[in-house]
């Protein structure tokens, strides 16, 4: 069979005659895509067998036999999932120990943060406004979640659960962008010492696990500061996330800068623009636009990486879930927590990834 398909897409039945019954077309499709050869048939049957045995059991454990409501541990059946603690603690998972009267601030912070995504989507709004919004976003989130300006100040220990994950993810993302642009430019500059420092920094940070940097921040960063000065652990962690993820972003942006045609840069220099003007008005606008999809997948990585702060004892969403399952009443339930956390991350990251893929397709379309 000489089909040309090697993209993994199902093959549509060719030349579907209008007179054919639709059932025939289904049979044709099944034949082509499931039972194309004897080997294919065996694989298909094996998969069906496997799904047939595993899926009903899993669904039964997760939903049909599971306990969703009740007062305490006694209501749970031992052979199926027990979702009572999740329901009891759901507010804690989302808002952490944030003061209840101020929770509208968390809600609006979520709204403000999520608004950045559709902003990347529309083409009508000029790029300046989008970049301005992204630069302004950390300030806005800071004011909403941490306080200051007209809002009451909230202690950093009141940030927890999803709020903390969100706070760390978005702020580290936005603030690492400028750092990464400088690093990318530094890596390509003609000044040798500057370049070596940037290259050394980027290569070194890429080789060392983030978790050791986080431990450094949590354990010893304070020792390096002058006596009496102390930085909150949350900000030290944020600092690490910014300066580590900037390295990965710098590589993305460097690639995008290299993709900008050399002729444009030379033309800009020939017109009398200096280095910074050329970068700001000719190179960066194109490079940034083209690196948006890669930056979005970088954001997904960063968002997932925020779970590591749990190891330091900070209660982000996974830490919060774990802490509540340490309650005397719920000790011994150990599958429910990870399942809920992974479901949350899957939904969040998958939708962002789909959005990134869409943007990439659009950029490609506009190029050709």
């Amino acid at each position, binding site marked *: 069979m000489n089909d040309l398909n090697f993209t993994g897409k199902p093959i549509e039945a060719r030349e579907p005659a209008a007179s054919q019954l639709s059932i025939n077309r289904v049979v044709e499709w099944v034949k082509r895509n499931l039972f194309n050869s004897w080997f294919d048939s065996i*694989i298909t049957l094996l998969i069906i067998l496997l799904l047939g045995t595993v899926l009903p059991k899993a669904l039964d454990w997760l939903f049909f036999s599971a306990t969703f409501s009740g007062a305490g541990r006694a209501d749970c059946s031992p052979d199926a999932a027990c979702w009572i603690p999740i329901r009891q603690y759901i507010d804690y998972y989302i808002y952490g120990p944030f003061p209840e009267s101020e929770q509208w601030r968390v809600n609006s912070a979520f709204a403000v943060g999520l608004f950045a995504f559709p902003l990347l989507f529309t083409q009508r709004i000029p790029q300046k406004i989008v970049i301005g919004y992204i630069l302004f976003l950390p300030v806005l989130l800071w004011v909403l979640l941490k306080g200051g300006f007209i809002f009451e100040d909230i202690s950093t220990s009141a940030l927890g659960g999803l709020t903390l994950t969100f706070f760390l993810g978005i702020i580290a993302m936005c603030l690492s962008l400028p750092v990464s642009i400088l690093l990318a430019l530094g890596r390509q500059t003609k000044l040798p*010492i500057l370049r070596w420092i940037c290259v050394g920094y980027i290569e070194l940070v890429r080789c060392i696990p983030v*978790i050791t940097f986080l431990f450094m921040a949590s354990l*010893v960063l304070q020792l390096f500061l002058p*006596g009496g000065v102390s930085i909150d652990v949350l900000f030290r962690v944020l600092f690490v996330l910014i300066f580590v993820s900037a390295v990965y972003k710098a590589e993305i942006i460097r690639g995008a800068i290299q993709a900008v045609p050399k002729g444009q840069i030379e033309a800009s220099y020939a017109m009398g623009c200096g280095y910074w003007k050329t970068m700001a008005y000719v190179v960066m606008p194109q490079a940034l636009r083209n690196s948006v999809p890669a930056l979005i997948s970088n954001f997904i990585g960063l968002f997932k990486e925020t779970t590591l702060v749990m190891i330091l004892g900070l209660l982000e969403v*996974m830490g919060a879930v774990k802490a509540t399952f340490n309650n005397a009443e719920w000790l011994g339930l150990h*599958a429910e927590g990870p399942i809920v956390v992974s479901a949350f991350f899957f939904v969040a990251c998958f939708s962002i990834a789909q959005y990134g893929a869409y943007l990439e397709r659009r950029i490609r379309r506009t190029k050709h």
Partner: protein
Amino acid sequence: MQSFFYNRKVRDALIQLIFLACVCYGAMYLVMNAATNMSNAGLTSGFDFLFQRAGYDISYSLVHYDPKTSTHLMAWVAGMVNTLAFAVVAILFTTVLSLLLAVMRLSHNFLLSSVSLCVVEYMRNVPILVHITVWYVFSLTLPSVRQAFNLGDVSYLSNRGLSLPSVVWNYSLWPSIVLIVLWLGLCFLMQKKVPSKGRRRLLMLFTTVILILSASLMFSPVVSISVPQLVGFNFKYGWTLPPEFIMLIVAVSTYSASHGSEVIRGSILAVSKGQMEAGLALGVKRNIVMNRVIIPQALHSIIPPMTSIYINVLKAAALGSVVGFMDIMGTMGGSSLNITGQAIECILIVMVSYGFLNLILAAVMGRFNNAMQLKGR
């Protein structure tokens, strides 16, 4: 004077010098702060602790580690070896799984490619730490030692890990050395005297077999196979891989493979579709076109991103301490740090160790990449 500063070279040099001075001053300032703070707080410093007795047990170690006598330095070695063992196995699995998932995804069997799609999307959208926890919870649902899965009476899978038969060398030192010297001498002689490559190889194989046979006759049994047996609380004999190790490898390699398979798929799809069509039009079989035309070209763009995936695999060993796998972060950055309280030194050692391992890995992959690129042209 003014023109001196407007000279481009002078200005560049000045900017760099100022920048360098700032960096150096910043580093100095931090180190000085640390020194004053530590002496004020009465903390000890220095690397003397490396030679003190560690006094804690390492649950799984490939080198000899005895909690009664071993030092912190030995704990570091044990952690380093564990990290390396993990990295080698996990990188291998990552490569194989990435290929498998990519091939599945590119298959025209609708079910197979959908399964691959689901697996990949789940794996790459959930944090690695969650994966590790989930797999660890799963490992605990394996049967206990007494009800272990019996894999053909030689291997057992239980929640204590995978027990495999192992090869035991009962060699005595001096005869072995004599034999090895003899063998090396023979090889050297043949290198000189036998010009033909094919015959030399044959001769070498022959002598090696003879030597091994005579050795096993002289000191029989040189090699014996040790099969795991249940004694008391645990399996004894054989070779038991602890579940932490296995589950960490499974979690990390499936997570990395989900990224790797996308890299491979992307690279294969990036090779223009026309090449496949041209090959098929020439009457060449599909898998031959794939192996001879598409994959060699795709390999160029696969290696660099795969290198960074491999580096991430190695770095993920540091997360093993969450489930009790003792890598460098678990020994030096965990138990040693807690017992000695010397946080700066311990974390520094961990960072340097990981940096060193990864630079080596990057260098090896770089050479591999170069070799591939040359062959392609």
